């Protein structure tokens, strides 16, 4: 089940998605053996309080969130979490954020070389911040500029997490590939809104939020597939994965690995179940390795 993804050798193809695992230090009932890698909660250079409540709302087969990238900032991450990551037997990528390309670069420089940090996932797709976030993700030039700013500051693997809120994900995928990305993560949440019919206003204080969960899975499989067709670098599939078959859809559609997110909230054993289910599927179908899994990936 080992896979190579954008400069990292992973023992398995199932990763913990950013924002659903904190910094990995207080995840309950975790079975570490199943974890290929973890992507940390998104971090900015400086501490951020996040958005006022209500921050989440459940929707059919999904949820909206507007956490607003609450976090302790880079210095606290280096001091409190990285030393613990350095002792773990799986790599940790840091999900990095900024309000400008230069701020992404500055953050990368602060984190580069810190023991425990194995790579970066550039977040150019968070829908829940006023400055930056999604803005960088739906403009190919801005996406490339951020990727270059990070690339220049580190030799560690650089992955880029793409937004689904674009008309052609292939254009963005190619732009960040050319700018030096080692892998793509597709996709982040969709922007959604839900109305409280008692209060006659949005259920989230931020007005909108990011939609995740099984509701988005077919959309995510399609977009991850479109991204994979457009580039030569690996694509990590994300979006509503709750069981092994869900993950296998992304893998057959051209992804090299997957991230599990919202499912972890519901089922603390989701990552282990997805991992074990993929292994059982491969065995049942007579595939000796994940590489033998047939792929459906006609190239653009």
């Amino acid at each position, binding site marked *: 089940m080992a896979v190579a993804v954008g400069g990292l050798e992973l023992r398995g193809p199932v990763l913990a998605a950013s*924002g*659903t*695992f*904190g910094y*990995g*230090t*207080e*995840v*309950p*009932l*975790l079975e*570490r053996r199943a974890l290929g890698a973890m992507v940390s*909660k998104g971090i900015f250079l400086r501490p951020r*309080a*996040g*958005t*006022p*409540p*209500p*921050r*989440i*709302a*459940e929707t059919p*087969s*999904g*949820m909206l*969130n507007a*956490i607003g990238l*609450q976090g302790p900032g880079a210095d606290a991450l280096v001091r409190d979490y990285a030393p*613990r990551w350095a002792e*773990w037997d799986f790599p940790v990528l840091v999900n990095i954020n900024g309000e400008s390309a230069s701020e992404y670069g500055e953050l990368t420089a602060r984190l580069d070389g810190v023991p425990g940090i194995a790579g970066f996932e550039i977040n150019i797709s968070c829908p829940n911040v006023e400055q930056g976030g999604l803005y960088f993700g739906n403009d190919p030039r801005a996406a490339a500029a951020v990727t270059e700013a990070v690339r220049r500051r580190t030799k560690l693997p650089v992955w880029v997490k793409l937004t689904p809120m674009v008309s052609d994900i292939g254009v963005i995928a190619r732009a960040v590939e050319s700018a030096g990305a080692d892998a793509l993560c597709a996709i982040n949440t969709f922007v959604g809104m839900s109305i*409280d019919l*008692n*209060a006659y206003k949005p*259920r989230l*204080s931020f007005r909108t939020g990011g939609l995740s*969960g*099984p509701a988005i899975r077919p959309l995510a499989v399609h977009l991850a597939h479109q991204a994979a067709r457009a580039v030569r670098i690996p694509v990590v599939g994300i979006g509503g994965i709750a069981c092994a078959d869900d993950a296998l859809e992304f893998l057959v559609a051209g992804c090299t690995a997957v991230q599990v997110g*919202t499912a*972890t*909230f*519901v*089922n*603390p*054993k989701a990552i282990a179940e997805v991992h074990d289910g993929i292994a059982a599927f491969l065995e049942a179908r007579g595939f000796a390795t994940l590489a033998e899994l047939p792929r459906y990936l006609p190239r653009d």
Partner: protein
Amino acid sequence: MSGGRPSLFLLDAPVTSKRPAARGMFVISMRAPEIARAVRAGQFVNLGWAGGPLLRRPFSVYRAEDDEIEVVLKSVGAGTEQLLAMKHGGVVSCLGPLGRGFDLKGKSAVLISGGLGVAPMPLAARDAKAAGLRVTWVHGARTAAELCAESAGDEVVWATDDGSKGFHGTAVAAAADADVVLACGPNRMLAAVAERWPEAQVAVETYMGCGTGVCLGCAVPLKRGGYDRACKEGPVYRAADIDWSALPSHLSYAVTA
């Protein structure tokens, strides 16, 4: 990954009974031995069930005895409707115990509950008595029909907004001082508790995602600025620590609904 803590369990808990406690309010019992033994007053469980909503739903543990735990609920939406329709033997996935509970030190305790805010109180009465405190439970609701019929502790005071049973007025107004003040109910009521007893321990209700501290969905605004997590640092808070003006009081499933 300090996880590994043996105090958290994920169990398939069969429903063993259901009984009415007030108009539209029910107590459901389920068999969850490890959780029943580990849970402390003020802690909660996060419940999910087949065919239910995507996210689990948090419930204070109402009582815990032998191998069983109880939760109290009202039908406030599709999820609670399904849970109430569950038959004897139906299985609920039960994650817990979660959160930080009440701290019980002193000679006397007053428990103040409004509406569904009874949820953590029987367990609080049990643990407070076990810790040697004299327990008075002040039980409030809008009307007698909505007042939970069950009680615990050495003394019980009833209060209704319309005067249909007991004290005519709020539970907060009916309560006397004590070494330890515990409160649970609508956030507006808890704000009133905070005015009168800044040191009170209040169990707050928020929307919740994971229940385990990773999603940051259950943010509670703090007086000193910033937020922390109802599921982890809470759900029990020192009343004076919360920025009540920033805590939503209009949850669509609010305890008064």
